[in-house]
């Protein structure tokens, strides 16, 4: 069992033994939750509820230049930490359609579209130790790509959030994603992926947070490496500005399930690359 596979167990244990008192959760979803101020950790969703008929917008940006790049002609600073190179960009809009329920769409620059719906089913209060939300999504690749068929990956999952006062939030997110392997099922050993996403957000200053997440593939199709990310973010009114570092570019959930690739070096070995990126969220409420 590698370290990323152990992560869900560690986070579950942390949730169970969290000694801090649970935050008193307000039913006013428009009110700021200091422990869970955003709808995503980095790529994984949170249990934050969208007020009915309100919306939020998010930009994701993952620069494709590795921070440690042996084949790049310029230094990391010379390439402005990747800003001078290409990026995988995503635009997301989500909308509260009913109390506790939200729908949204994420479009990334590799022509992937994710349609998702999320519904909050439990609040952390009294005997209920966690916030819980149900998540359903449908990812489509090659949307708008001439001559290339789209591949569809439906997803079902649950988001469990343990809020620790106004200081932190811990996440465990088991998800089943169908058709992550884009080959016909007759040609593959595994066609689906079961991931147990884990994440954490810790408020270190009144408006500054540290975030981290990983999406270990517990079963099924698991090519490449497990995606992991960490970052720092600053809340400013309805905005959240996040600088992050990831070992893959995925922001849609099927992309995260497929993980990242190790770079094959000329000497036959391989290494994990890390990439800089950012998220910007704007809540319209």
């Amino acid at each position, binding site marked *: 069992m590698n370290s990323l596979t152990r992560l869900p167990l560690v986070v579950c244990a942390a949730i169970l033994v969290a000694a801090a008192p649970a935050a008193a959760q307000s039913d006013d979803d428009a009110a700021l939750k200091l422990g869970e101020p955003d709808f995503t950790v980095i790529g994984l969703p949170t249990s934050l509820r969208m007020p009915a008929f309100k919306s939020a917008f998010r930009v994701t940006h993952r620069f494709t230049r590795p921070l440690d790049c042996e084949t790049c002609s310029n230094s990391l600073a010379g390439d402005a930490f990747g800003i001078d190179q290409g990026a995988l960009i995503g635009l997301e809009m989500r909308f509260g359609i009913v109390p506790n329920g939200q729908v949204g769409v994420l479009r990334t620059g590799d022509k992937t579209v994710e349609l998702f719906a999320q519904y909050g089913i439990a609040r952390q209060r009294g005997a209920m130790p966690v916030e819980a939300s149900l998540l*359903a999504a449908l990812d489509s690749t090659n949307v708008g790509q001439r001559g290339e068929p789209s591949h569809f*990956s*439906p997803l079902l999952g649950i988001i469990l959030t343990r809020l620790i006062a106004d200081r932190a939030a811990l996440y465990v997110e088991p998800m089943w994603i*169908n*058709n992550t392997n884009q*080959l016909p099922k*007759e*040609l593959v050993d595994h066609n689906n992926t079961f991931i147990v996403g884990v994440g954490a957000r810790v408020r270190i200053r009144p408006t500054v947070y540290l975030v981290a997440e990983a999406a270990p593939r517990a079963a099924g199709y698991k090519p490449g490496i497990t995606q992991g990310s960490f970052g720092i973010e600053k809340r400013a009114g309805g905005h959240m500005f996040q600088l992050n570092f990831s070992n893959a570019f995925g922001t849609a959930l099927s992309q995260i399930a497929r993980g990242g690739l190790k770079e094959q070096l000329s000497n036959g070995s391989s290494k994990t690359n890390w990439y800089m990126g950012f998220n910007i969220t704007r809540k319209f409420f």
Partner: protein
Amino acid sequence: MNRFVWTLCLIAIATCAAACDEKLSSIAGPTPNLHPTFASVQAEVFEKTDPAGRAACTNCHTSTGRNPSGGMNLNHDVAYDNLVNVPARGRPGAIRVIPGDPENSYIVHKIEGRSDIAGRRMPFSGPPYLTDGQILIIKRWIAIGAPRN
């Protein structure tokens, strides 16, 4: 949102999950009925010239009226015993089909035209050669143990 709506969502997801898998025919190119079974490979690849013009293997690898090329007879009743765990005549040490190991099976090297093959890429009269999808299906049959199915 009530249970009825969520039930509808689950049904929609389940339906989509059933429908979302790629069809094998979508990658099988000119042989849409090709499956990773020996009977299918025999019928669709060895014995059939496909609509794209790729020649049937049994045009040359047959004992009907001639000696089979390379000593490999792919006629219906003997093809399996000429392939699986059988040494290749053209390249000493190579095995035509190694069950479970498509990457080291010499037939894969020949139809992919790898640099280590003796003689020409197959089919001899190509192009057209087998498509990537067709080769992938043949490799899958080998990967699952090259059963006589």
